[in-house]
């Protein structure tokens, strides 16, 4: 008897896809990551405890899949075909100015260390509480807070520096 049904997680797929897209920077990598996560979650569904937070549990599964893929040197870093990226940007953003801001944000995100990127996205985009984020990542809440602080500050610096192609040369510190 499964602890949750396919329909239970069906409704959470858009959330998983959104997080995966922001995390990997690529539509293909994100959908691969999401599909792998769904399959792993389904295979391990007996391990989920009824009554606990299914969304946090699914994100924890995704975190595991992501870290495993990372350890093995996955392909996805260079995955995003430029035409895909361009099309997405055009779709996502109503105005050219927004498009530039979105692109700069995506690029800055990918330059964050992964552990900071994850936490910035879990809290800032997915709006997990700090306690839930700690559960997703299997780290103490103090670690969540310190990574969040470092991640947000680094992201702020990256966005203030601007993208290198807009300013020609980036300042070297």
């Amino acid at each position, binding site marked *: 008897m499964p602890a949750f049904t396919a329909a239970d997680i*069906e409704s959470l797929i858009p959330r998983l896809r959104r997080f995966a897209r922001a995390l990997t920077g690529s539509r293909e990598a994100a959908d691969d990551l999401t599909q792998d996560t769904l399959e792993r979650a389904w295979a391990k569904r007996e391990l989920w405890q009824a009554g606990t937070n299914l969304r946090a549990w699914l994100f924890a599964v995704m975190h595991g899949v992501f870290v495993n893929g990372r350890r093995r040197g996955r392909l996805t870093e260079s995955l995003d075909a430029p035409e895909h990226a361009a099309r997405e940007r055009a779709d996502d953003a109503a105005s050219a100015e927004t498009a530039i801001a979105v692109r700069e944000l995506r690029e800055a995100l990918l330059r964050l260390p992964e552990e900071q990127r994850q936490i910035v996205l879990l809290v800032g*985009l997915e709006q997990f509480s700090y306690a839930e984020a700690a559960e997703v990542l299997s780290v103490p809440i103090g670690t969540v807070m310190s990574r969040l602080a470092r991640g947000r500050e680094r992201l702020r610096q990256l966005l203030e520096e601007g993208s290198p192609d807009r300013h020609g040369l980036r300042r070297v510190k």
Partner: protein
Amino acid sequence: MTGGPVNEARLHAYVDGALSDGERAEVDAHLAAHADDAARVGAYRAQNEALHRAFDPVLDEPHSLHPGAARHVPPARWRWSAALAATFVGGAVIGAILHAGWQGQRTGRAAVAIARQAALAHAAYTPEVRHPVEVSASDEQHLVAWLSKRLGTPVRAPSLVSAGYQLLGGRLLPPAGEAGSAPVALFMYENAQGKRLSLLVRREPSSSDTAFRFAAQGSTRVFYWIDGPLGYALAGEIGKDELSAVALGVYRQLNP
């Protein structure tokens, strides 16, 4: 960073709306007196808003991912729907592929590993003008027998003539750690314009079939799948649709 009760963690909790009214009032007072912290809080809030602007559209995108409930839900993999839409294939082939997806508990990591190995091998060997292969296609019988013997299972060199690619030959690659100790076969093909495709074939430790999947590394695109004891990865620097059509042709020949 700051003195008093309003520490770094409190500022973030303020940004994330995780404070009680009383705590929030304290932080408001602090920010009124500390312009640098106020600027940071403003920037962090703007980050959260920008993240939503950038990625919320994903929530509304159509997708065909599904929970891994292969027995209950038809496996409509989005890659496949894309590949199939771009390719005219017979119902039998679609059936066979859906069946492969249906069996679905795939080993994602093994599948990704084969794609990586194929992309690396493609990049290493296809630029070779004089020695792209160890055994040329003129000796195809020997080539296939040799590779079958070394892999310890029958392998075939599918014909890609209908897609415009001639078999150049093949070579043996060292085993990839994650796929056991058996060596790996690489077939190479070339079309009239000199474009090359490589088909990597190797034994897979787990014999769970997968659906077709797609990956890319730089300009090298790869379609890969696991079919029984063997994993296959077709790599090339051609368009995704064209590559998927060739991959379908390979699959069709190997599963008549």
